[in-house]
């Protein structure tokens, strides 16, 4: 019972932390307040409005100067389906983009779409291309946790959170790239740098909370020998 309660708490905290990667606009303070209440000293510092604005526009947006979206498909091989599989091999064989990354709607997104279908959940239009956005992944984990389905929580953590380390690396790469080209056409580059630093702090927090949740799930039933998810 204690382990189950612990799992539910950790899943809720993960969801709240992940929600900070959503586009809040001018209402972002309320999201950070909720995080502060739920996470205590682990909560991220409240950014200035300017930094939060740059985070949402130039980091957490596709096609942006420091674009680093927390969307699983972008950090995984796009498709794993083997060549010619699936009844009537198409001309040309396997998906052309099998190994490519940085593409939306890869296998992880398709899998999440199937899960949402089974759970009768709909992805809101702004996330249509990103059903595997960390906001939605964490929310799904939380739904399973609150329903007491530790197996499903473990499966989700194992399948859909292992990329957070790569995401953290991507943020670091963007930060280095910004430093290298700060003189090339980016208004208030220092502000963008702070936005990237803040994103990194959010990502670090998320990684820690995901690890925490994975450990708590392991404690419920030793059948699942899950490794820490962020490695």
């Amino acid at each position: 019972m204690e382990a189950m309660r612990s799992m539910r708490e950790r899943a809720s905290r993960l969801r709240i932390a992940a929600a900070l990667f959503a586009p809040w606009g001018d209402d972002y303070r309320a999201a950070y307040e909720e995080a502060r209440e739920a996470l205590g000293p682990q909560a991220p510092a409240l950014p200035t409005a300017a930094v939060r604005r740059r985070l949402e526009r130039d980091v957490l947006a596709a096609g942006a100067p420091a674009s680093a979206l927390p969307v699983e498909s972008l950090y995984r091989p796009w498709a794993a389906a083997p060549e010619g599989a699936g009844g009537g091999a198409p001309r040309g064989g396997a998906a052309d983009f099998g190994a490519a990354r940085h593409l939306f709607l890869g296998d992880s997104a398709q899998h999440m779409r199937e899960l949402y279908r089974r759970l009768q959940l709909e992805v809101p239009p702004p996330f249509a291309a990103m059903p595997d956005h960390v906001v939605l992944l964490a929310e799904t984990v939380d739904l399973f946790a609150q329903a007491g389905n530790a197996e499903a929580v473990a499966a989700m953590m194992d399948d859909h959170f292992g990329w957070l380390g790569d995401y953290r690396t991507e943020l670091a790469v963007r930060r280095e790239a910004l430093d290298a080209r700060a003189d090339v056409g980016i208004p208030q580059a220092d502000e963008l740098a702070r936005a990237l630093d803040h994103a990194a702090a959010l990502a670090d927090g998320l990684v820690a909370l995901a690890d925490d949740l994975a450990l708590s799930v392991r404690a419920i039933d030793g059948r699942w020998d899950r490794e820490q998810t962020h490695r």
Partner: protein
Amino acid sequence: MRCNPTRRTFLKGTAATAVLAAGGACSLGAWQREQAEAAGALTSGPSLCNGCSSKCGLVATTRDGRLWTVEGMEEHPYSKGTLCGRGHGTAQWAYSDGRLTQPMKRVEDGSFAPISWDDAFAEIGAKVQEIVAEAGPEALAIIQDPRPSGKYYSKRFMNALGSANVYTHAAACNLSKESGIEQATGAQNFSVDFANTKMVVFIGRSYGDAIRPSSVKSLAGAAAKGARVVIVDPRLNNTGVFATDWVPIKPGTDIALLLGIANVLVTRDLYDHEFVEQHAVGFPEFAAQVADYTPEWAEGICDVPAATIEELAESLAAAAPACAIEPSWRAAFGCAYQNSFETARCVCAVNALLGSWGQKGGALLTSSPKAGDLDPAKFPKVPAPASPRLGDEEYPLALSGTGTNLAVLNGCNDGAIQGVFFYNSNAVQGYAQPAKWREALAKAKLVVTIDVQMSETALESDYVLPECTVLERLELPEFIGGKKHYVALRTPVLERIHPETKPCDEIFAGLAEACGVGQYFPFTVEELADAQLASVGTSLDEVREAGIVELTDPEFAYGVPTFKTPTEKFQFTSEKVGTAGLNPVIGYVGRLVEPAEGEFFLVGGKQGIHSHTMTMNLEALNAISREYGLERLWMATSDAESLGIADGDTVEVESSEATGQVTVKVTERLKPGVLFLPTHYGSTSPYLTRAQGLGINMMDFVPLHLEPKVGSVMSQEVAVKVRKVEG
């Protein structure tokens, strides 16, 4: 989207507790195994590639709604079952993280912020109406790189506003070449009958590096049959695998080579008398001029030995009429030099002397289909704008269908143009000196770009409107000419991936409504496409199903064509050229810029996996460039040795306009004194995170100057210095 802070969840619907609590969720691995074993819903749909302007037919197959393969459409005359590297790479755009996914507006601090479509349309509409009220509709302009829907909607939109200022990218592509061909033949282009040719001479053009799998196949077929294939180019380009000869030539002097060949044909009486006497005008004046253009004279200009020029002429004469000088595209005389227009006329003149026009194995003029008249009740006619297009008077030889887009640059500078729209065009980076474009656009009151990514042009805009990618949209029919006529179109193979992107027909209709001319867009693209197709005897359903439909046989036949010139004959002399202030008789014009001692010619060209500045941010294509160092500047081995430069060194390139550093490729495949720079690199948009900073952009180095009377950009009229960067 803004999140509601009182509702901390995003997924909609209420998953039943029982479902959530029931057993294990299907793991990713289990789901992948299920997918592999399941039949999967495979669906195929036709489209036209957007990797370049060829628009080769393709078939895209999806599996359960996700892109599975793209392949060249077998029946399409440009692909013939094959897609080039661009075609495969650009299919990634649909899923790329580098796409724009919502409309953007430049805000006070210079950055871009999201804006809703409704607000974007309203604000743009208000500014357009303000410009029209203050300066008239002629202060508005649009520049577009033609695509099936884009070319229709952009023209209709601008004309509906009352402006004639509709331009294509041609001034930075093939304007000079097509204008020159038009003055000589009445057509804007021609093709070589590769199936039957005995000899073909390429001036700068490289099928192996750019455009159309079918062209490569045709050339391969000709080479396999033993045709002589001559590449005239400072660089041994990748068409060299099919060539029998490489003629290294001084850049911008192809015209001298051609006139030297003409001299031999005329003075040694090797030309086709019947053609010249029955089907041409102006030959006596041309012959009188060409008498001076001896092979020795030509050698002094183009650095090709006189003996080579003589041998080429004699071989062409022997092969005639089953031979031709190939028309090229952009390469050596599309827009490159002060003499590009005249070079194109010379190409046509040599083909005329050879009697190859319309002959088996020669230079063919074919026809193109087009849509018939449509019901004006459903598709209202747009009144013709009152004022002429800006630039037409100063550049009377520019094609009526394209104009010169550099008139917009100049117009922004002098205030004649105050509002500019760009569709599928990265003018700032590719059409002329980028600094000059930026300077000009900064003076405009309104700049709007419609694109899939934040290009350099988008970066200079007030509003950027994201189009959905080709595989997500239906477009108007594309009519395809040649010996046979076809029609094909782009159909949506994928569901819209990003909901806040739109196809250009919806964007232009929305803009028109906001600008007060919505009454000219009372139809959907489906309705218009169906009507256009009905006018040529088919339907939207038929073309969707078949992918491509063959139209009424134009009944092509070999034989001297009807030249649609004012004289109805081939024109060795053109009245219009004379009226424009140039020599009416096809003759010699030199290049403008001559490198001084220690300077180099600089030429550019395409690579087989890229198109101009469009493709460099695509992950797969960018990765290939980086893997193979494709951004490198080519330098001849002897030049490198004399400068102490080794393969892989970093060099600084300097012109009157810019300096830049790039890695060098030292090669024997280049004429000494010449540098070759692939023209896809040097992006400066921080939004194009993969492209930015890789290599250098040729246009940065070229001064802004326009070809007289034509208005092309003279993209290779530049001399540069090079030095090794130490350390």
